[in-house]
C-alpha cells in the first residue's frame, strides 16, 4: 500500500490508542443494556475524535483522507473492537447529509451524531415495500411550517433503542412513483410515533416496526428538495452497498483470525476445508486491493459489484470458521464469537438491497442488458 509518513503515523496512533482504550467484551447491541454500552464506547471514540475520522474537524472528525479512514478501519477491526452502533448515522445518513443537506443541517446534526448523542435508525422498508422501495405508502402531508407523517415502517435496525429516524415518505400521491417522494428526518420519540420491537433470528430485538400517526416534522428536517427524495435516497444506497459501511478492514481481520483458527485446529489432510480458508483469505485480499484501486472513482452502480462480493465473502468466511469449530460451533450467547458473526453475515445477502436485485443492477447498468 502506498502509505506516506502521515498515514503511518496515524496508523501508529490509532493502534496505540485502541490498545490503551479498548473495552472488554460488550453485550449485544441489540439489547437495551448492550446498546447503551455501545453508545458509551462511541462517546469514548468521539472524545479521541476517532468516531468519524474522515469528517471535517468542526463536525467532530479529523479531516482524514479516505486512505487514512481505511487505515483506521484496518486497525479498528484487527484490534477486535466492538461493532459500531452508530453506523447507520455515520456511514449512511452522514454521506447523504454531506451530499444533499444544508449547511445548517450539517452543523446541527453531524456533531451530535459524531458524539452518539443521536443514534439514527434507517426507516426505509415498509411491509409492502422491500426490494421495490418506490412502492412505499407512508405519506407526508403539508401543514403549517412543516409536514405530518403517517404510515408504517418495518425492519428498522435497532429502532427500538435509537433516537432518530431517516426515511422516505410519499408527499405527492399524484406524481409518478419515483417522483412524489420526500426524504425526512424525524424524532423517534416525537408524539405520534410508536416503536414495536421485533426479535431477530437470535431472539434479540434487533429490528423494530415504526408506526407514525400525524408526526410533525419541521421544514428544517427535510433532506434535499421535497419530491426529490428518491435521488437523495439513492446516494445513501450507494454508501450502504459500497465501501463506507463495509470497509475491507473487517474482512481482512476476520480472514486473519480464520487463518489463526486453522493453525490451531485445522486438519492439514482436509484440503477441502483448507481451500475454503484460502478462499476467504484471497477474497478479503481481493476486496482490499479492489477498494484501494477504486478510491478515486465515484460510487455508482459499481457498489452493487462490491455488495455482492462482500456479502458472499462474509458468509462463506463465517461458515468456514463454524466448520472448523465442529460440534462446538453451536455454542451460542457469546457476543463477538464466530457464531455471532455468522448470524449477522446471514443477513448480508438480504439487506442493503438483496443480492438478486444487485445482480439485476450489475446486469442492467454495468453490462447493459435490457430490463
Amino acid at each position, binding site marked *: *500500500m502506498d502509505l506516506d509518513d502521515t498515514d503511518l503515523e496515524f496508523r501508529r496512533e490509532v493502534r496505540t490508542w485502541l490498545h490503551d482504550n479498548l473495552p472488554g467484551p460488550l453485550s449485544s447491541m441489540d439489547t437495551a443494556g448492550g446498546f447503551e454500552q455501545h453508545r458509551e464506547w462511541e462517546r469514548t471514540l468521539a472524545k479521541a475524535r476517532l468516531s468519524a475520522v474522515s469528517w471535517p474537524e468542526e463536525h467532530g472528525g479529523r479531516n482524514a483522507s479516505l486512505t487514512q479512514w481505511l487505515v483506521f478501519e484496518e486497525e479498528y477491526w484487527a484490534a477486535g473492537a466492538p461493532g459500531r452502533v452508530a453506523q447507520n448515522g455515520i456511514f449512511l445518513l452522514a454521506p447523504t447529509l454531506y451530499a444533499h443537506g444544508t449547511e445548517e443541517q450539517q452543523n446541527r446534526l453531524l456533531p451530535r451524531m459524531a458524539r452518539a448523542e443521536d443514534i439514527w435508525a434507517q426507516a426505509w422498508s415498509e411491509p409492502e415495500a422491500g426490494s421495490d422501495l418506490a412502492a412505499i405508502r407512508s405519506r407526508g402531508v403539508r401543514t403549517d411550517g412543516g409536514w405530518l407523517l403517517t404510515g408504517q415502517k418495518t425492519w428498522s435496525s435497532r429502532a427500538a433503542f435509537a433516537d432518530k429516524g431517516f426515511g422516505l415518505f410519499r408527499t405527492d400521491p399524484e406524481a409518478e412513483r419515483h417522483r412524489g417522494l420526500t426524504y425526512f428526518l424525524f424524532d423517534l420519540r416525537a408524539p405520534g410515533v410508536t416503536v414495536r420491537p421485533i426479535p431477530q433470528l437470535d431472539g434479540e430485538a434487533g429490528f423494530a416496526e415504526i408506526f407514525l400517526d400525524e408526526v410533525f416534522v419541521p421544514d428544517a428536517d427535510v433532506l434535499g428538495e421535497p419530491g426529490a427524495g428518491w435521488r437523495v435516497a439513492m446516494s445513501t444506497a450507494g454508501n450502504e452497498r459500497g465501501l463506507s459501511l463495509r470497509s475491507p478492514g473487517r474482512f481482512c481481520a476476520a480472514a486473519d483470525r480464520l487463518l489463526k483458527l486453522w493453525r490451531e485446529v485445522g486438519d492439514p489432510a482436509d484440503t477441502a476445508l483448507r481451500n475454503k480458508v*484460502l478462499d476467504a483469505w484471497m477474497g478479503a485480499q*481481493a476486496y482490499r486491493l479492489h477498494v484501494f484501486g477504486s478510491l478515486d472513482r465515484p460510487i455508482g452502480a459499481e457498489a452493487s459489484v462490491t455488495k455482492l462480493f462482500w456479502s458472499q465473502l462474509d458468509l462463506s468466511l463465517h461458515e468456514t470458521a463454524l466448520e472448523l469449530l465442529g460440534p462446538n460451533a453451536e455454542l451460542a450467547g457469546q457476543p463477538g464469537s464466530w457464531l455471532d458473526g455468522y448470524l449477522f453475515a446471514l443477513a448480508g445477502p438480504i439487506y442493503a438491497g438483496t443480492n438478486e436485485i444487485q*445482480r*439485476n443492477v450489475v*446486469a*442492467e447498468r454495468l453490462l447493459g*442488458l*435490457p430490463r
Partner: protein
Amino acid sequence: MKFTLSDEQRQFAQALRDALKQSTAWETLLALGVHEVETAPDLVVAFLELGRAAVPGPVVESFAVLREPKATLAWPPHVPYIVDEAEDTYAIVDGVRHRAIPEEPRKSVDPTRRLHTFRLGEAIDQIDAEAFNRGVLACSAQLIGLGRTLLERTRDYALQRKQFGKTIGSFQAVKHQLADVHVALELAEPLVFGAAVTLNTRDVSAAKIAAGTAAYQAMRTALQVHGAIGYTSELDLSRWMLKVRALVTAWGTEAYHRERLMAALCP
C-alpha cells in the same frame, strides 16, 4: 496495495488492443515492443490484452519467462511439454536452463497451442529466481483477459439473440449468470495487479487461483448462454474457451498453487 494504471500503461494497453484487433501475428507483438516490457505490472498490462485477443504462440514463455523476442520452453512438472514452436527451445530442470530438442508433437485442447515432448540438451545457465513466478503471473493476466472477452461477447450475444419473443438478455436467469461472471473478474484482477507489485509466491499463487476460477466461470457461462452455436468451432468463441481450459492447468494447477499459498500463509 494501491495500484492505478499510469497514463503510459493505459496508452500501451490501448495501442495493443487496437493493433491486436487487426492482427494477432508475432510481428504485431514485436512491433509494439511486447518483448521489451520490463516490469511485472507492465507485463500484466500487456498480458491482459494478449488474453483479450486470445493471441496464439509461446507468449508467456518468450516474453514473461525467458525475456527473448521469440523462444520457448518446457518447465516440468508444471509445463511438461515444450509450448509451441520457436528457434530457441529450452527446458528448465532444477532451476537450470538447458537446450531442449523437440521430439513428438502432442495435441493440446487448445488447437492453437502446439506441444512437444523433448530431449534434454546441454545445460546453459541458472534461470533467475523470479522467472517461474513471472510465468504464472503472465498466465494469470492472460486468463483475466480471456475471461473479459468471453463476458463481453456473451453480453453482446444476449442482447441480440431472441427467444419467446424477447432478447435472452432480459431473462434474469441469464442476467444473473453474467453478473456473477462480472463480479468474479472484477475482484480477481486486483489480485493479479497486487501480485505484480510484490511478485512473491503467496500473491502470485493467489492471483493464479482467482484468475483461473474467474476465467473458467466466464468460459462455462459463455458456452451456456450461447447455447448450441457456442458448441461449434465455426463460431470462433471456441478460441477463447479452449485457451482458458488449457491455461487453467498450465503454469501450476489450482491444487499446486493452493499448496504454495497455504505454505506461505501458515509456515
